[in-house]
């Protein structure tokens, strides 16, 4: 027995070493795209990332960041932490597999034979290495996300319950259970995924403790575990904060004490109560349960870090969870909204309508929780108080427009659902509106609902990912159901060609994509063998089977059911299901045990030939290593992220495009988080104020934007927002109408004009000389900032709706400021900058704020938009944009006419600044290194940069600066070469070729044209194949 333990430990650590080597040598040396830059900054500086936050990840990451030799190494250290945690996960996977395999292969109480030990070790090695080198897990192992840590917790907890199984009869074995509870509490501070292990844990407990486990007993236990998950997920996680909120209200609002008194009293009370009850309760199961609860709460208390750090108001403080009410909605992830799960609306359902007290038709709503915020004080000696901001309201839907198990529920995605479904089979349903004739609404059928569930949610968003890991993957390009992108495949061409069309006809860039990995279904088969063996071998193995199955189900299909995904996700979501691939890897490992078991029974025992044991050993060993080694031969190249600096450098380039002290409006994760990372962690260009337009709609973000950030020379002044809290608080001015119809077909503009005509004195008193000046329009008409009005005037002003009074406003330009600003002067500076809102009916709060800032700064501070924001999302404002790099500067010049004259399709460039920025300041993240891995997101960023360089070159040619143009072209070819980023029509390559030709480099131009035409011939061929 002792020999077995030594071998088990030693081989486990060897497998750990292999995994650690794999991940450490492929780890990304800096931040990666998506949420990684945010998580890394949140760990290094203890700032607050997106809900529900990851405080324990922050603490661990913070520790690792302290090993960094300088700030550029911080990200790498945190990535290495994840690499090591992932290797730790592999270690526990190995020990879990060997535990399960040994329990089935070796009879209880017997010493395992050498051959049996070999078989058990081979099972562990095979399963662990298959998982090590599988796609999804490796992806998360080499970047700064929380999924590696979360997987580590899952593996650890699963292994601990098996460990408990071995020690269940020792007197204080309950300690293991308490430890599991504590780790679960901690893991909430990383990711909630870990709770999904509970059913498996409960089953292990039941099978071990019950003298005679039955099927009904198992079902009962599963119900108990569902209850446990519900208690933690819906009780403890949000409940702790909710009850805390009651205490806060009592102590602060009612008793008049300072903020957080109630919270402290509450925390002290909870722990005191638990301590006392644990001391007095001697009943073993109750004592253990109370201990579990207490330790889980201690683990969960890492959230205090979030609370305390949010109170410090760091630059990144998402949702400002620095008071118990905001912390509550932060923990409850309320910003993501609720999705119906069992019963609810379809995408075409209309909300129920009732009449209000005045008899007006309104949407029927259910009242949710009240939202409280700390009062914004006007004087420092004012008393602390929480004020009600609003009540959370939810729309109701008439029950005849609802369905069971709604899978096609989101109105916003209606067109996408129908696109996915082909044709929806809708049926008419009566829609009652009080006091009117009933209308009909077309509701999709249950058949469509289930079709979507099976074909999209299950097949496309789960099984496809599953098959990537155990059968093979077509390429790393996100697929939306088309046969050339992101499908699973096997490597057997007869099967793949039948499903997806002739794969050898795919265009080269798809066929040679590094994400193309084929495993010939080998891991899948091995897993199936292990699964069947475990399910049918004997009574003990069936129990194991249910334990692993529930891990597999809960971390896979249960998540699919819970998240109720809508079509067209922004990225592939396989990382959410890593836990279920972990469970399947256990079966892959057991596949080896199964083959051994079979050989043991039919060859060793029946044939009774001694020398066969050598043959068996050899076969097992070959199988063990062949499958994972085949996998790694495929997956290494598309998981090797070493030497990649694109995320950091491209993020930096946005900042380098901005003039000193400028404001940059961005949009989306990949144009915001890398910028934050550069500023917060690496201290690059902190003078630039980065403002994400999506967040600017929320009051907490506006609060943050009104605060100064950083110190010294890199200080960033607050955004010039003059609005008071009451004017931008949640629920106020969320949408602002533009020139709405007020009465009798008269628009707001007509009303204002008629008042100006009939009572010019009054109009002047109210609105000054010019009511259509942008500043006046916003502050008088939207925000109602009037002073010293008579009662009659007050009444009149109140009768007007809060809106922008015209669709055509203007800013009187401060010419001196424009001259000082060093922006490119496109002709004479105009007296007025026209703000044309003709095509806009309503503006978001964020947009109005941006307009107000343009009016407020009046070109005394540079304002930019990131070029990845769609120009048309700002109406006609983009006619005032001049490109200076990866950003557009807002100028007073209207370029519409200018553009027509010059024959340019896109914005005008300030070639002088853009040349300096792109040639001297920009970095290109090592994109030119031959063979470097460029995934889809990185590829998109490379293309964005190439397009900018191409535009700069074309514009230089228009300005007859051929020498500079050629330099730009050479730089483009050197930094973003076609061997790593192939030429395509949307990468600006046509412009590049034309620019080369204009510079007299005919052969270069021809080369690009040839590459383009070859690619498009290939696509043509593929399109014909597709339609065949």
């Amino acid at each position, binding site marked *: 027995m002792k020999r077995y333990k030594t071998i088990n430990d030693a081989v486990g650590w060897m497998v750990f070493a292999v995994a650690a080597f794999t991940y450490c040598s492929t780890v990304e040396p800096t931040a990666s795209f998506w949420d990684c830059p945010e998580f890394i900054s949140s760990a290094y500086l203890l700032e607050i990332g997106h809900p529900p936050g990851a405080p324990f990840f922050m603490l661990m990451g*913070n520790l690792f960041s302290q090993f960094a030799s300088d700030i550029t190494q911080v990200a790498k250290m945190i990535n290495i932490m994840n690499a090591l945690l992932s290797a730790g996960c592999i270690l526990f996977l190995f020990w879990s597999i060997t535990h399960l395999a040994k329990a089935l292969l070796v009879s209880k109480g017997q010493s395992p034979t050498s051959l049996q030990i070999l078989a058990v070790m081979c099972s562990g090695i095979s399963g662990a290495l298959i998982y090590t080198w599988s796609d999804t897990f490796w992806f998360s192992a080499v970047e700064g996300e929380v999924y590696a840590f979360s997987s580590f917790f899952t593996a650890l907890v699963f292994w601990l319950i098996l460990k408990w199984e071995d020690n269940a009869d020792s007197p204080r074995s309950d300690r293991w259970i308490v430890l599991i509870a504590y780790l679960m509490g901690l893991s909430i501070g990383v990711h909630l995924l870990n709770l999904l292990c509970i059913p498996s844990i409960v089953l292990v407990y039941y099978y071990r403790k019950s003298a005679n486990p039955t099927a009904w007993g198992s079902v009962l236990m599963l119900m108990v575990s569902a209850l446990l998950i519900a208690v933690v997920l819906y009780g403890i996680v949000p409940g702790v904060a909710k009850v805390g909120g009651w205490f806060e209200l009592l102590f602060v609002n009612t008793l008049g004490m300072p903020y957080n008194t109630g919270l402290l009293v509450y925390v002290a009370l909870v722990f005191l109560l638990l301590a006392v009850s644990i001391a007095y309760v001697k009943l073993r199961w109750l004592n253990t349960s109370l201990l579990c609860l207490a*330790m889980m709460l201690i683990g969960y208390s*890492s959230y205090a870090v979030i609370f*305390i750090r949010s109170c410090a108001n760091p630059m990144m403080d998402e949702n400002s969870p620095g008071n118990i009410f905001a912390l509550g909605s932060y923990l409850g992830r309320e910003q993501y909204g609720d999705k119906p799960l069992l019963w609810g609306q379809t995408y075409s359902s209309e909300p129920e309508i009732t009449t209000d007290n005045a008899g007006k038709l309104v949407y029927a709503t259910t009242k949710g929780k009240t939202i409280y915020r700390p009062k914004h004080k006007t004087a420092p000696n004012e008393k602390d108080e929480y004020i009600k901001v609003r009540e959370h309201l939810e729309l109701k839907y008439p029950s005849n427009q609802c369905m069971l198990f709604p899978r096609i529920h989101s109105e916003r995605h209606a067109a996408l659902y129908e696109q996915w479904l082909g044709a929806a089979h809708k049926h008419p349903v009566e829609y009652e509106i009080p006091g009117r004739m009933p209308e009909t609404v077309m509701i999709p059928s249950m058949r469509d609902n289930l079709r979507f569930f099976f074909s999209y949610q299950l097949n496309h968003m789960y099984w496809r990912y599953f098959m990537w890991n155990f059968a093979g993957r077509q390429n790393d390009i996100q697929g939306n159901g088309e046969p050339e992108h992101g499908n699973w495949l096997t490597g057997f061409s007869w099967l793949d060609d039948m499903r997806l069309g002739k794969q050898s006809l795919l265009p080269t860039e798809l066929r040679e994509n590094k994400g193309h990995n084929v495993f010939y279904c080998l891991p899948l088969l091995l897993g199936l063998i292990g699964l069947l063996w475990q399910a049918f071998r004997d009574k003990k193995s069936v129990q194991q089977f249910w334990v692993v199955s529930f891990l597999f189900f809960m971390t896979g299909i249960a998540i699919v059911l819970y998240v109720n995904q809508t079509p067209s996700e922004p990225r592939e979501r396989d990382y959410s299901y890593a836990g279920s691939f972990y469970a399947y890897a256990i079966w892959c490992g057991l596949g080896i045990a199964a083959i051994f078991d079979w050989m043991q029974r039919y060859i060793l025992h029946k044939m009774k030939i001694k020398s066969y044991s050598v043959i068996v050993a050899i076969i097992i060993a070959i199988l063990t290593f062949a499958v994972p080694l085949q996998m790694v031969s495929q997956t290494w190249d598309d998981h090797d992220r070493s030497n990649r600096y694109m995320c950091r450098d491209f993020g930096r380039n946005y900042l380098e495009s901005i003039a000193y002290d400028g404001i940059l409006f961005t949009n989306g994760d990949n144009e915001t988080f890398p910028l934050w990372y550069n500023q917060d962690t690496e201290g690059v260009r902190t003078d630039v104020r980065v403002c994400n337009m999506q967040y600017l709609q929320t009051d907490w973000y506006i609060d943050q934007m009104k*605060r100064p950030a*950083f110190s010294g020379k890199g200080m960033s002044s607050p955004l010039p927002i003059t609005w008071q809290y009451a004017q931008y608080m949640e629920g106020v001015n969320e949408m602002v109408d533009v020139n709405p119809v007020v009465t009798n077909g008269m628009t707001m503009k007509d009303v204002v004009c008629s008042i100006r005509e009939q009572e010019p004195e009054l109009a002047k008193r109210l609105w000054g000389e010019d009511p259509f000046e942008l500043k006046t329009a916003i502050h008088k008409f939207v925000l109602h900032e009037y002073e010293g009005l008579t009662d009659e005037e007050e009444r009149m002003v109140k009768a007007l709706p809060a809106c922008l009074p015209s669709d055509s406003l203007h800013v009187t330009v401060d010419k001196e400021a424009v001259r000082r600003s060093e922006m490119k002067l496109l002709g004479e500076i105009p007296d007025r900058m026209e703000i044309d809102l003709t095509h806009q009916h309503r503006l978001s709060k964020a947009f109005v704020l941006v307009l107000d800032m343009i009016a407020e700064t009046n070109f005394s501070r540079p304002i930019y938009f990131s070029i990845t924001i769609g120009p048309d999302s700002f109406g006609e404002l983009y006619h005032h944009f001049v490109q200076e790099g990866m950003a557009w500067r807002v100028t007073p010049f209207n370029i519409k006419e200018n553009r027509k004259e010059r024959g340019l399709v896109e914005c005008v460039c300030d070639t002088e600044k853009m040349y300096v920025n792109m040639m001297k300041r920009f970095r290109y993240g090592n994109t030119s290194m031959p063979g470097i891995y460029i995934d889809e997101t990185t590829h998109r960023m490379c293309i964005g940069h190439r397009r900018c360089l191409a535009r700069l070159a074309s514009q230089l040619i228009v300005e007859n600066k051929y020498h500079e143009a050629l330099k730009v072209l050479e730089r483009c070819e050197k930094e973003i070469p076609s061997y790593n980023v192939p030429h395509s029509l949307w990468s600006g390559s046509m412009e590049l070729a034309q620019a080369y030709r204009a510079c007299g480099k005919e052969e270069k131009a021809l080369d690009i044209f040839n590459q383009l035409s070859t690619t498009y011939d290939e696509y043509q061929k593929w399109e014909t194949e597709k339609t065949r």
Partner: protein
Amino acid sequence: MGNRKDKIKTNASENTLAFGTLNYVLVFIGLLFIIMGLVLMSGEGTTDIAFNPDIFSTMRIKIAPMICLTGFLFEIYAILK
């Protein structure tokens, strides 16, 4: 005699419970570390008027989180001891 028997009995029942006295003491020590870390982490924040560089001081974002983390990891030892 009777007294001693009682004592043995309570000891036996305590032995089957998950935690002994030592565990409680150790868990409490771990808690002290966590609380100490949290206290050291708190302090004045940035206001609407001025950025406060102290929010990123060595004490608040390097030493304090380390003490907290020590507390959290120590609890594992406290449970298993």
